[in-house]
């Protein structure tokens, strides 16, 4: 198990390293002078030249890459042109909000989609299956921004169940200075009003963000369960008189859960991507909002930083999923060969 984890971690680290280089190369290869882009068409050549020197753009490409990578190793992502603060500080300030949203979303996805998938498989070809099918279809085909707007319109505006935007009601004074996560800090400080309000704010954005993944995972759980059901060892368990509920929920689910978990890991990047839309619509003060703002301002350092941090998120999420898979399925860790 330890060896397995080390191997997985090593290969993910490699992905991260490659990612850093790739993003840097893309940023430098795209046509246009970053300094010129940042300053806009009204800037004088002198201003551009000054910024180029400041950004190190006059150096040879490899030197720039080296400087960038060594800065990266020390947690330095450069300075944001938009806020004039270190990108790292900006990102760290916005990170907890995104983390809270994403975590809440993933929990929502797992809690809703895996049971639904099992139900659909167990009651295959009945009305239950059809209803689940429709739910997952809606999830898959509804664009995130359309869903976000509809939710805002119906649940928040017309019905008034939930706040329209933001992370916490402005009338509540609270300083999330422990972890930055409102739910965690609120609980630690015993501020239940904060926790309740934070959950109310979280619900709509996380539903908007979760639906696409829910649609996918329901389908995959269903087909994995059906596939496992036809395996010999399930027939054997039934023939040996193991009760049906044990066969379904312990024997089948454990084997069948590998596929949906893997998909959740792979879809994580899309999730972060979609967070750009959802945070934008709900004015959620996270890194995606920051990302959209900096992208619109062509603030390259900040954009690179945001994409890179998203990549780190992806890598960590997949490492966690690998650990879970390793615990669920001994073949996963014994086949220490590595690649999935």
């Amino acid at each position, binding site marked *: 198990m330890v060896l397995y984890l*080390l191997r997985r971690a090593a290969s993910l680290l490699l992905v991260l390293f490659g990612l850093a280089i790739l993003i840097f190369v893309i940023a430098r290869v795209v046509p246009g002078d970053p300094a010129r882009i940042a300053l806009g068409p009204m800037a004088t050549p002198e201003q551009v030249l000054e910024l180029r020197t400041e950004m190190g753009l006059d150096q040879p490409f490899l030197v720039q890459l080296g400087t960038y990578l060594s800065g990266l190793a020390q947690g330095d992502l450069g300075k944001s042109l938009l806020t004039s603060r270190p990108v790292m500080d900006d990102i760290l300030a916005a990170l907890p909000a995104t983390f809270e949203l994403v975590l809440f979303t993933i929990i929502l996805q797992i809690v809703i989609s895996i049971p639904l998938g099992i139900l659909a498989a167990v009651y295959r070809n009945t009305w239950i299956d059809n209803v689940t099918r429709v739910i997952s279809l809606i999830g898959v085909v509804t664009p995130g921004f359309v869903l976000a707007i509809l939710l805002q319109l119906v649940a928040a505006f017309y019905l008034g169940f939930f706040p329209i935007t933001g992370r916490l009601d402005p009338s509540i004074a609270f300083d999330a200075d422990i972890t930055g996560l409102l739910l965690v800090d609120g609980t630690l400080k015993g501020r239940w009003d904060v926790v309740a309000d934070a959950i109310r704010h979280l619900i709509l954005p996380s539903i908007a963000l979760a639906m696409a993944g829910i649609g996918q995972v329901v389908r995959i759980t269903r087909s994995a369960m059906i596939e496992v059901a036809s395996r010999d060892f399930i027939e054997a*368990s039934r*023939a040996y008189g193991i009760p049906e509920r044990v066969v379904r929920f312990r024997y089948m689910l*454990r084997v069948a859960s590998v596929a949906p978990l893997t998909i959740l890991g792979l879809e994580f990047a899309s999730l972060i991507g979609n967070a750009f839309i959802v945070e934008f619509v709900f004015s959620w003060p996270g890194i995606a909002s920051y990302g959209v703002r900096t992208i619109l301002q062509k603030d390259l350092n900040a954009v690179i930083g945001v994409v890179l941090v998203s990549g780190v998120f992806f890598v960590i999420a997949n490492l966690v999923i690998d650990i879970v898979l390793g615990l669920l399925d001994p073949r996963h860790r014994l086949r*220490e060969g590595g690649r999935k």
Partner: protein
Amino acid sequence: MSEPLLDIRNLTIGFRAYGQYRRVLHDVSLSVGQGERVSLIGQSGSGKTVTMRTIIGTLPMPPGEVESGSIQYDRSSLLDLNKIERNKLKGTGISIVLQDPMLSFNPVLTIGRQMDDIVRYGDARLGQSRSRDARRRHIIDTLDKVQLSDGDRILDSYPMMLSGGMRQRVLIGMALLNKPRLLIADEPGTALDVTTQDEILALLNRLVAQEGLSLLLITHNLGVVREMADRIYVMDKGRIVEHGTREAIFNAPQDDYTKRLMAAVPPLYGPDVVTITNDKTAPKPAIAIEAVSKDFTSRSGIFNQHKTEHRAVDSVSINVAQGDIFGLAGESGSGKTTLAKMTLGLIDPTEGRIEIDGQDVGQTRGTADFRKLIQIVYQNPGSSLNPRRTITDQIAVPLKFTGHESTRIKTRVCELLEMVDLPADMANMYPHELSGGQKQRVAIARALSVNPRILVLDEPTSALDVLVQSTVIDLLHRLRAEFDLTYLFISHDLSLMRNFCNRVGVMLRGQIVEEGPVADVFGTPQHAYTRALLSAIPVTTDAAEALKPKVSKEERGAVLNRSTAIGG
């Protein structure tokens, strides 16, 4: 036999699929008496698996439908029982051993966990309960019965960590955990090597006697039936065509199908054995393998830093003369396929050299001349034919890349199809429209398309039913005579080899332990392994049984991997 334990009467079952209804069992009647060993024999698709599933209650319904008939087990009518009573019998009244010892385990749970669940829920249904320790003791006792003494270690293992033979034993142990009265075994040991299969069959026989079990054995192998059955039912296309005592069926089969089945099984010993000879004399051998070895390297560790060498073929030397049918016999992992691949130039030997028709394989492989010299027919035509290409397209590939003109290719394909007795209108079909035997004929036609002198036959009939096998073997004999071919025939089926080859070599752990003309190797086997192998083969007549070589326990132990120990 006053009252049978299991009594199936006039069972008719059908399936509804794709809007059509098909009957798969027609009026099947079958009974198993108390302590009796009954075999149900049939080829694939005969309906024997459907019968088994209906008895144990795992046939999915729908799409399955029982039209009529009844199944009586110990005075209760299985098809009429309610779900709870039906489930009570599972594992405790009737238990099964499924065919494939790899696929019959849950891969993510330890053996111990799986066996404990069976005992625990079995107890619960019988209204009793035992402590975890008591259950574990019971499981270890049961493993002892199937001759697995290392119970503790086995229970902590995952299925993938055990060898095939051990898994098969554990599987039998699992079936016995709740002390069933009727054991249904589906092709036990078929997926294993013949020596392991032999041990498993002996074990089953002993358990039936010791535990007073009734046994319903489902198999396609007549030899196995002769060793395992008191009474036999022969099934064909969903009907029982004949039944009777073992003696009656083997000595005086009445039904035409049974007779054909008997005739199609190649005899290992006795008067019906055919001995092939090679009268050709040629100065140089067709295949000369000189001191060839092959090592495989596997890597492990975080950065693949640990290398482990494994010797798959160990200094093998063979000469195959022009016109020979040389049989390379051996169990799985003996290195016979690796040797064949080196002969075809697909992988390089680590040491030694191979010459085909006097030319070094290392230098000539990949050339058109080499391809005109040697070709291969694979074991499974389902895999060796591309499912998405027409028969013509596939047969044409070797022609195309050996410089044939496209106008000539079409006529050549028709010629080839005729040569392997296939109608010309199959040329535009896809493989899935053909039967297994027809597909293998296509594969043979493809191999012969560029007129090679040598064919490597990698178990060419093992994926086929025995009736089809005999027709393909006849075809291969005819083609050899017609086109002066030399065959290198790889197989684990020694009965077939006895009648098909003129020379054989026996491989064990990468080495050739014995080699010579068939009559000598089979008649007076010198090496203990050859004797062990021959004695393990289930044969179909008492005469053949008597002629099999005898092997002492010590001799066996010295040459065989035991299926009872971890890492064995």
